[in-house]
């Protein structure tokens, strides 16, 4: 099996398919968080593959801060992120119905808006 892309050839696909070689076994994924200004929240922007956190940070710099302003980057090993299981999706199912938790949904909001409108009209 040969390809025009040397990276594909380097993979040694025949041996991979026969299970002799485990590809990229030394690489794991790191989640990358980007902060555009000191003090602002770091926002998740994607992942990089790397063999160590140091190299993950080096890669994250060119992968996710090539353009615009950057104050800092964080990398966190994906396996260190503790999350809900997809099977637990049902725990979130009824949340969108609970509109009373959204301040915009309060009835009083209508009255405030009516008052503001009236006030604006008299000014």
């Amino acid at each position, binding site marked *: 099996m040969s390809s025009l892309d040397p990276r594909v050839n380097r993979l040694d696909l025949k041996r991979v398919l026969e299970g002799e070689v485990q590809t990229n076994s030394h690489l794991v994924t790191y989640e990358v968080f980007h902060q555009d200004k000191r003090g602002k929240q770091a926002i998740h922007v994607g992942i990089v593959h*790397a063999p160590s956190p140091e190299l993950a940070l080096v*890669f994250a710099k*060119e992968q996710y801060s090539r353009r615009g302003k950057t104050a800092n980057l964080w990398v966190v090993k994906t396996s260190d992120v503790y999350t809900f299981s997809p099977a637990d999706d049902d725990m979130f199912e009824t949340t969108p119905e609970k509109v009373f938790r959204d301040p915009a949904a309060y009835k009083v909001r209508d009255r405030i808006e009516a008052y503001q409108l009236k006030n604006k009209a008299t000014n």
Partner: protein
Amino acid sequence: MNINATKDLLFKMADDALIIGHRNSEWTGIGPMLEEDLAFSSMAQDKIGHALALYKILNEVLGEADPDKLGFMREEKDMKCCHFVEYPIGEYDFSIIRQFLFDHAELIRYEMLAESGFQPLAQLAKKVKGEIKYHVMHADTFVKQLAAGSEEAHARLQNALNNCWHLALGIFEKSELESDLIKDGTFAGEEELQARWLAKVTPLLEAANLKIPATNNDKIALGGRRGYHSEYLKPLLDEMCEVVRTDPAAEW
């Protein structure tokens, strides 16, 4: 200020940056992994940017031709780059060790030039220091990672270091006008740069369990700063300049 000495310094720095930038860009699309492909290509782009900034000083402050002409229209014998940057990219171990040795020298050179009495150069040095700091961080992290890896990875690094050592020492070849640069306060000189570089890279290589080859003065790759180049520069220039030289007056 000795103008010719300053020009000579700017030309050798610019030519080094242009040629290493071109060489490293040859990894674009065939890097060892996607993330590294992108990072190495970006750093190659940075180098071309540094070359442009230096050619601009030569053009705008010292009356030389415009940057495109200086970069693409000079003959091999007029180029002032060292042999180290001319060598083909080889395998990744060679390119990483070259980045490690070359960029540490670059970083210290620009740190020294931040104190230069020649203001345009001092200003540029302050501007690019962050970029080169990242290039050095990239090289340091890779060397540390690979040296601590498999036996093959370590052996490859050691072999690359053996092949690079006398080429790297060619970076510090003195120009004939060196003493004027020092006297004018433009640049503290190659000898001091080399001493500071050696003090910086030695502990890093030792920490990576890599052995610095014994220096043999007869083997140091000299000549580049005087226009005598390795066999690899001419084909590189022919390829890099092929399109622009077919019609130098074309508008891009």
